[in-house]
């Protein structure tokens, strides 16, 4: 019995630690893929320490954790003492208030705070930048406070209330008796509460994810962005180091506690020094933390006399210096030392749209696709550009200025093209029979490849595919046609493995999925790392030909700097260097001269003109249509297919039913017992 229990416990610990082991091993892997260990290297660690951005993110996380912990400990301790002395009924009310963030799901807390900040900030105070460092700090303090309260309260309860009386009897003022008697007595509670608040804050993802703005991002939130696409292995290195750090801290803490326990047991006389030592340790810790904060704010200060330019771009849509490409942002900052670029990413036009629409953020440069630009122009969300500041606009090919092709901004007022490309089908030649490609888009419905098909996870592209397949116009506003598309997309659900955006990279590259519709440039990238992949454009049915262009949203604060950035990006040399990394087509022909040859000559990147002619652009759709489309797509995504998960869900319903019955039976039996007891009396 005991033996089996021990074995069982060991197994559970293995279960708990296996994924961590995988990550630690991955940090020493020469390959990028965590599933295959290719060889031992320490390179990831070196890269980690070279990556200032990543370290800055870690710094951000630490800063917010330290600040929020300090506030929590201060406010919480004082409050706990107050609450402890409240009348019982009042105390109960306050404690249930304390329990709200504890029992509320994180996602609800995050959303409610985010809505509050946006509501108060944007709607009531007209402040666009209402999601910022301050609001993030407020959020962290809010979920950290209960940990301090709930750890300090029991210590106060345990404390002999006559202790403070004794202190005052011996001449202490209430203040002194608090510091001399109460505080040392409840110190363990404060320390534990503080540590909990700190770790919760440091590791918080869910709440931060909803509350975060652009100008201050923490590590876990950035990791989330990473995990949606290919995760750079240096993240594993960071994980390993953090793991060792936390492990070491915990062991040290335990050992210290054990030692002081032992001392307490062996010699009572020494025991009073324990609280003193804790106090000292806390003081030392606080001092160290204050140092960190000082440094942090120092860095903040040095940054502040620069113009901060917030650039919001698609994921993996700018050369970042990896794989021998140019680090575009660094280059821009080098040429414009007065500007500090804060760069963040989105993964769909719709996400970008709603982020701007919902308010609460400041962005200076965005790079939406054509139809989204049209929509934003229509809704007055963009600023007109001052082309005097963008002399490089002259290099942009005439065809991108022609009102006939440039339907999204026919007057050439709001946008400077960044890239253009097509949406086609990426497939794995190892598994996909090329003869099946004759079905065109229909191959994405092919039962033969069930569960190996990825579907693009944004409404417009997904509807577009259905529309090409059904022979409708992609710019239709016809309600029945949209409903027919919904039916078609629902039909596809049973063969789709997942709806994805950036995640497509890893999944296609490692062969988890074999077929996916995606953008040509990204296809090039994937083909680069997995030679089995190929790209196909269903020319007969039609495909989307899109342009992404740089715009300045109306919430921008640094318009002039933004225009300088746009101008910089439109330099043929820069554009060419950029395309080397992102593998899209540049709207600037001259850029080809600065691009690697294989790209400039690739038909995937630059399809021949006769093929281009078969593509169609997405046009702006009226607000109600695009909204309806979003809603319908969400319905497709989240409602169940008739078959597919059907049987599994039936099983779950049965289990659920059984549980409900068991629950009812249990409560009835306990009720009966109670009644019986009463009658016994």
């Amino acid at each position, binding site marked *: 019995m005991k033996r089996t229990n021990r074995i069982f416990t060991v197994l559970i610990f293995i279960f708990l630690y296996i994924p961590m082991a995988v990550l630690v091993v991955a940090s020493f892997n020469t390959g990028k893929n965590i599933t295959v260990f290719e060889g031992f290297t320490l390179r990831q660690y070196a890269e980690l320490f070279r990556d200032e951005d990543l370290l800055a993110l870690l710094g951000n996380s630490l800063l917010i954790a330290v600040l929020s912990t300090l506030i929590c400990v201060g406010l919480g301790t004082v409050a706990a003492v107050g609450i402890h*002395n409240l009348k019982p009924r009042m105390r109960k009310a306050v404690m249930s208030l304390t329990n709200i963030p504890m029992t509320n799901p994180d996602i609800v807390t995050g959303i409610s705070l985010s809505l509050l900040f946006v509501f108060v900030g944007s709607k009531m105070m007209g402040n666009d930048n209402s999601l910022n460092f301050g609001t993030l700090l407020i959020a962290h303090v809010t979920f950290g406070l209960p940990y301090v309260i709930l750890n300090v309260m029991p210590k106060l309860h345990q404390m002999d209330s006559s202790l403070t009386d004794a202190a005052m009897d011996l001449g202490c003022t209430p203040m002194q008796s608090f510091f001399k008697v109460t505080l040392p007595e409840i110190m363990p509670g404060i320390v534990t509460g503080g540590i909990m608040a700190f770790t919760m804050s440091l590791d918080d993802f869910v709440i931060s994810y909803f509350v975060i703005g652009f100008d201050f991002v923490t590590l876990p939130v950035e990791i989330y962005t990473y995990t949606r696409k290919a995760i750079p292995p240096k993240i594993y290195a960071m994980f390993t180091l953090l793991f060792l750090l936390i492990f070491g801290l915990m062991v040290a803490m335990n050992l210290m506690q054990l030692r002081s326990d032992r001392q307490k047991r062996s010699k009572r006389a020494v025991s009073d020094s324990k609280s003193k030592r804790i106090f000292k340790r806390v003081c030392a810790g606080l001092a160290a933390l204050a140092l960190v904060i000082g440094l942090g704010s120092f860095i903040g200060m040095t940054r502040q006399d620069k113009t901060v330019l917030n650039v919001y771009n698609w994921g993996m849509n700018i050369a970042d210096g990896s794989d021998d490409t140019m680090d575009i942002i660094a280059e821009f900052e080098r040429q414009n030392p007065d500007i500090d670029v804060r760069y963040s990413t989105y993964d769909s036009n719709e996400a970008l749209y709603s982020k701007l629409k919902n308010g609460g953020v400041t962005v200076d440069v965005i790079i939406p696709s054509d139809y989204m630009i049209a929509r934003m122009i229509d809704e007055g969300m963009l600023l007109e550009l001052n082309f005097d500041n963008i002399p490089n606009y002259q290099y942009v090919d005439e065809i991108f200025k022609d009102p006939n092709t440039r339907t999204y901004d026919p007057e050439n007022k709001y946008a400077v093209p960044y890239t253009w490309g097509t949406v086609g089908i990426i497939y794995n030649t190892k598994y996909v029979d090329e003869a099946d490609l004759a079905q065109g888009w229909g191959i994405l419905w092919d039962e033969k490849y069930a569960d190996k098909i990825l579907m693009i996870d944004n409404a417009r592209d997904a509807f577009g595919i259905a529309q090409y397949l059904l022979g409708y116009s992609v710019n239709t506003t016809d309600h029945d046609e949209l409903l027919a598309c919904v039916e078609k997309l629902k039909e596809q659900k049973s063969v789709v493995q997942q709806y994805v955006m950036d995640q497509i990279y890893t999944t296609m590259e490692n062969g988890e999925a074999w077929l996916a519709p995606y953008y040509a440039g990204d296809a090039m990238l994937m083909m680069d790392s997995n030679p089995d992949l190929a790209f196909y454009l269903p020319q007969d049915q039609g495909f989307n030909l899109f342009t992404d262009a740089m715009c300045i949203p109306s919430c921008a604060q640094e318009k002039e700097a933004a225009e300088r950035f746009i101008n910089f990006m439109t330099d043929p040399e820069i554009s060419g260097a950029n395309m080397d990394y992102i593998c899209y087509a540049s709207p600037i022909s001259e850029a080809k001269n600065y691009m690697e040859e294989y790209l400039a000559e690739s038909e995937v990147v630059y399809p021949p003109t006769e093929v281009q002619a078969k593509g169609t652009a997405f046009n702006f759709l009226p607000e109600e249509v695009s909204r309806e489309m979003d809603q319908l797509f969400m319905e497709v995504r989240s409602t169940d297919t008739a078959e597919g998960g059907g049987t599994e869900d039936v099983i779950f319903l049965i289990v659920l039913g059984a549980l409900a019955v068991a629950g009812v039976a249990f409560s009835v039996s306990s009720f009966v017992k109670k009644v019986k007891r009463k009658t016994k009396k």
Partner: protein
Amino acid sequence: MKKNNAILLSTPYILWMLAFTLIPLGVVAYYAVTDPVTGAFTLDNLAQLRLYMPVLGRSVGYSIVSAIICLLLGYPVAYYIAHRGKVAQKMLYMLVMLPMCMSFLLRTLAWKGLLDDTGIINNFLGLLGLPTLRMVRTPGAVIMGMVYNYLPYMILPLYSTIVKIDRRLIEAAEDLGCTPVQVFQKVTLPLSMPGIFTGITMVFVPAVSTFYISQKLGSADTSLIGDVIERFFKGNNMNLGAALSLVLMVLVFVCTGIMNRFGDDEEGGVVV
């Protein structure tokens, strides 16, 4: 200390909590009943919730199942830890807590690496010449992800309850003729009930609202209510997202309410 002092000391905190926990919930409710475009009062969002009931049902189902699995896996572990020596207890407790401090995104991602069709486990099976298994993108994988992520939330409260059970009660039961099995049934188990209820709540609540696990380990057919909320909120319709989170909140409060009723209160749920 005088009463008005108490109020003075606790006032900043009470105001803080009102401003940042209670009022935001009101704002959620406000968004839930307003139109995304016009901002006018509407019940449309609530009417649309009907469409997402199957997803909600699935989330609840998965979470209950994972809470039960957590209980079955966690109890023996908690029991084992509670019966070690002092030093061992501390160390084991720490080892249970440690994973909770590490990025849950990366750990879930690591599971994906393990379970993928071309993942570590299947690679290993392939090496042994065994047929590969389909693990990822099944409800099982999602539930496993939940169990993995929230198991510590079950073990820790169970441990703190079991360790507090007076040894003399066990001896008393033995003295009165209970075999070890009977001791467990009649004394240890009933006395660890509060811990069990706390544990179930602490697993159920984050599990039912999670929005990452299913994205990584699940399929198109296993998306959970958290995923839907995230998509609406980060996507195009905050108001519908708010309406859905309102539902989720009510659900969770009802569940914890029931659990607290069973759990004989006082102990309070927070042992992390």
